């Protein structure tokens, strides 16, 4: 099966809430929202962040923007004031999600997915 990088389809912004990493995902083309809705599930995101995740990842779908909000508990163990890690906010981690490969056939010119 061929794949597409999330980086080819969407933008991601990171924020922090205590130990939880908040990632908001925005399809660059709103037409890709359904595709992301199918493939970018909470389970897929949880797997991508692996053992760092300490609880269930939640996904909120915002069809109007469109956007998806993921809350990923535990990734920021200790939070910005509780950990000595360099990027305590986890601001860099939005770009980790962009490296996620989705099992979607890449589109070529003139072809629809």
């Amino acid at each position, binding site marked *: 099966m061929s794949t597409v990088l999330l980086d080819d389809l969407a933008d991601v912004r990171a924020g922090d809430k205590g130990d939880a990493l908040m990632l908001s995902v925005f399809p660059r083309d709103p037409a890709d929202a359904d595709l992301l809705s199918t493939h970018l599930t909470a389970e897929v995101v949880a797997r991508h962040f692996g053992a760092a995740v300490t609880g269930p990842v939640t996904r909120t779908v915002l069809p*109007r923007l469109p956007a998806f909000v993921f809350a990923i508990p535990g990734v920021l163990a200790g939070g910005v*004031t*509780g950990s000595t890690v360099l990027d305590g906010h986890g601001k860099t981690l939005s770009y980790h999600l962009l490296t996620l490969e989705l099992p979607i056939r890449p589109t070529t010119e003139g072809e629809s997915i």
Partner: protein
Amino acid sequence: MRGTTVRLGAGAGFAGDRIDPAVDLARRGGLDFLIFECLGERTVAAAHARRLSDPSTGYDPLLAARLRAVLPHTHRGGTRVVTNSGAANPEAAGELAARVAAELGVPSRIAVVGGDDVLDIVRRVDPVVWETDAPLSACPEELISANAYLGAAPVVEALEQGADVIVTGRLADPALFLGPLVHTYGWDADDWELLGAGTAVGHLLECAGQLTGGYFADPGTKPVPDLARLGFPFADVAADGTAELRKLADTGGRLDTRTCAEQLLYEVDDPTAYLTPDVVADFSEVTFTGTGENRVRVSGASGRPRPDQLKVSLGFRGGWLGEGQISYAGPRALDRARLAADVVRERLVRVHGVDESAIRVEYIGAGAAFRGLVVDPQPFEVRLRVSARVPEPDQAEVIGWEVESLYTNGPAAGGGVTRTTRETVVVRSCLLPRQLVTPFVHLLEA
């Protein structure tokens, strides 16, 4: 189209933010209100730590510089200033604001908003701490601060008393913007729809440059023009809570539906229930519509009744952070950095008695930012960072010392050592019934 709208400008999005974009807005933005949001959870606790060592401090160190730069313009333009720069010491910040205004010859009525300091109250009530799920009294660290998130009400009161400059401590960020809207339009304290809409505008503006291309720019996927001259945003807000988001002509950055969508959801865990002291705002039906170059109309936010309890930020002494960094490059860079880390770890434990579980090792350049989720096995260059939080400053000092001593005692070709030691605070949260918290407004004339 003005006259039927009120114009709010974002002058700062965090304590260390730039000053010149705020001056630009104050000078030619035609603002009704200029708002400086300068307080993070960590900022307020750190400010309390500073105040404990010097009682005259504890407010935003850049406050005087910000006011000196903007007050001549805001005075001329009839713009009123609202800021939470008071941090841990709003009274001292208010007095400083009065001094700056007097020095500039700008007659001003300064309002200090207090009442957010609830240290005595939480000690008495002993609420459950979110992070530990146990009573506050069970936290082993020394509690140094407790600040309740105040809502817009005291800002409204200060504006009604004619304040030109309002300095607060811990106030919910969007409330800094909601206050002027409630004051201007006389929105009722239980008109949840309007308070939700105003809160959405405040939330969009509170991080200043993050709405106009900051924290957004990516040369490959999201190019932002003239990022070094990033203009801060302002909003023309109508009486129905809808707004047009804009930035000044001839500034850098971009303001479009993509930058707005990203900021709307920033640090929002539940877009249907964004909790503030004033309202539970609902952002889930918000829509953005481009109305021109760098102009976006926002509508669709709403709200539900406010929570009965207020969130409180608790600050504890967190011990001392010691840190050292050293670079390795070229063949076997990561192998040498790992050897260096082993040496430092062994010596910190064996020679200095540092608790091994407190020591954290990061290989910057080999995937440290992604926290071990991805590792580049052969980085061209790697910077070893060793850090630990320990109870005493002299123990923190040896972390960087042991990294520095790698120069002559460690692996080949280690260079560029830096080391730091600083006191830290730990921030946790709890709730207090809102009737236990009493905001107050105190006026100073300058």
